[in-house]
């Protein structure tokens, strides 16, 4: 039995190292967090045509996200009903059937079992309708973002996302065609706990000028201090952003212009971005038109980078291992050349080759090392910065505060603790 109050203090301002390192905690997280949340699977732009599929994960469970013959989206667990092999071995593709290597049972992209070669030689034919791949119990999408859940009774996705939609639309709705994911996610393995990358992008923008000071100028931090906000729409979710002054020139406000691709992408790119910003107010309203997002987080393990135009998912692989995925995100209606330029807003700084991410990765791996230390249980981590200093805001939904306020993390861990408590109660 986990002593949850010892792991996370009442107000979540002091937290035990074991939250990131204890195998028992990890086992509880699987049930209590990943068994009961909406988990991000992918974006519909990755599977436009019937037969298209991509691989995904829900915690450690491999999932096939596919567009069925009927044009609907399906998600099935990637494991043959016969002896369990993954039936889909490619990271993406288009196919009519998934053929299991071992005995060639074959399945439709939507997971139905259609053939058992061996059955011709036995009298009693198995009932194939009962032997398809296990479907993900719940599946839903919003703005093309597809989520799945192991919990059949989970609340509807829109309610789950709640006011995070307000912050996501601040970007998505600027583009007539919405957004698109470019190619496959970059995937890499880190010796860190899954929550570290999550916390980082949930609201910890204040590490920027410090961890990244070899690259990020101190001024960036000053701007954030001056114009930055941190919002928590519901415990576990969060958004950080800058609200540019009303008189700020469009160049300073426009999404994309401040990145490598924006700066060096040439006139076509800049023209496109100015154009988008010019229409921003009418599309997302005057306030959100002045918003420049920083990082977002959606409980439990989805993150979004605004300027660096990327979605990221932190897939647990054990207490001390994470498989981190990130996708470059671009406006769906931009010309190919513009899309190519804008993806470098992401890849120059983030992803496994990114100039910033190399420091983040190391920091997370180092925190895991620190979290595995013995003889320090009486010396818990300090999550108390800005305790109680958040509050409502006239223009922005949720609790709002300065970015230095760690309330985003306290809220995350309160929800996390309560989720684990619920499991403990039933099991």
């Amino acid at each position, binding site marked *: 039995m986990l002593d949850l109050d010892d792991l996370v203090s009442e107000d979540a301002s002091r937290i035990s190292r074991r939250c990131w390192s204890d195998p028992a905690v990890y086992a509880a997280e699987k049930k209590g967090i990943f068994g009961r949340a909406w988990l991000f699977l992918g974006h519909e732009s990755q599977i436009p045509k019937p037969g298209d599929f991509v691989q995904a994960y829900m915690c450690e469970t491999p999932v096939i996200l596919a567009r069925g013959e009927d044009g609907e989206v399906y998600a099935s667990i990637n494991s043959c009903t016969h002896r369990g092999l993954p039936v889909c071995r490619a990271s993406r593709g288009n196919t009519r059937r998934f053929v299991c290597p071992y005995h060639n049972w074959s399945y439709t992209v939507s997971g139905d079992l259609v053939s058992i070669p061996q059955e011709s030689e036995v009298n009693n034919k198995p009932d194939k309708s009962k032997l398809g791949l296990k479907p993900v119990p719940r599946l839903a999408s919003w703005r093309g973002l597809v989520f799945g859940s192991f919990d059949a009774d989970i609340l509807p996705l829109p309610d789950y996302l709640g006011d995070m939609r307000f912050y996501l639309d601040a970007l998505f709705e600027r583009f007539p065609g919405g957004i698109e994911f470019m190619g496959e996610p*970059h995937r890499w393995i880190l010796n860190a706990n899954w929550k570290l990358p999550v916390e980082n992008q949930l609201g910890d923008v204040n590490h920027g000028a410090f961890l990244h000071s070899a690259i990020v100028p101190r001024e960036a931090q000053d701007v954030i201090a001056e114009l930055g906000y941190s919002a928590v729409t519901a415990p576990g979710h969060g958004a950080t952003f800058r609200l540019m002054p009303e008189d700020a020139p469009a160049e300073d406000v426009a999404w994309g212009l401040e990145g490598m691709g924006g700066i060096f992408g040439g006139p076509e790119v800049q023209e496109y971005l100015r154009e988008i910003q010019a229409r921003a107010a009418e599309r997302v309203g005057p306030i959100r038109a002045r918003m420049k997002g920083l990082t977002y987080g959606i409980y439990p393990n989805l993150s979004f980078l605004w300027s660096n135009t990327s979605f990221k998912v932190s897939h647990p692989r054990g207490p001390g291992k994470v498989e981190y995925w990130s996708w470059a995100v671009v406006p769906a209606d931009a010309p190919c050349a513009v899309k190519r330029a804008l993806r470098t807003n*992401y890849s120059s700084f983030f992803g496994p080759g990114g100039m910033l991410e190399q420091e983040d990765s190391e920091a997370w791996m180092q925190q895991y090392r620190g979290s595995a230390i013995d003889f320090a249980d009486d010396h818990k981590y300090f999550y108390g910065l800005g305790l109680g200093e958040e509050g409502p805001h006239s223009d922005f939904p949720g609790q709002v505060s300065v970015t230095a306020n760690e309330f985003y993390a306290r809220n995350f861990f309160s929800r996390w603790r309560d989720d684990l408590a619920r499991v403990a109660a039933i099991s």
Partner: protein
Amino acid sequence: MNGLSLAISAEQQRELERFYFFEARLLDNREYQQWLALLSPEVQYLMPARTNLMVDNRERGQESMISVERELEDAESMGCPLREETIIHLTVRVERAYKINSWSENPPARLRRLVGNIELMAEDEGALTVWSNFHLHYARPGSADYRYSGQRRDVLQREDDAFLIRRREVILDYADIELPTVGLLF
């Protein structure tokens, strides 16, 4: 590009190897400022992403079915390469290396590469297309050792008696990236 490398003389091959061993030494010794001087200001530095595509049964029986090319998301693709860099990116990376807060490499990691299988694939008025393989041993304090393996497809340009790197495409041989970063200088 296909077939044997160009039938150049041992002396010409030696000239290329001398250059690549020198470059490797600069990188192994973390002498990145000197390395930067080996790059053309117009250098393109690319690292395609590598995917695990389903092979296409219609190509069965042909080498193209499992060619390396088809699994690359490179600069021309609508996927996302790992790196698409210019002299600006590389200059920032080099400057970072000599700051105390380049945290992930302070203390610095050990580097040692073998550069081999050096082949001159084409030469066209001072532009040399050279392919080579490398295995890089990388050891970061307090963590395991890593092996980086890849091919480099370079375009060198001859500057009087020296070479400048005008284009480098690094084909990293990963299926899943179990490396702390692919942001190193290869």
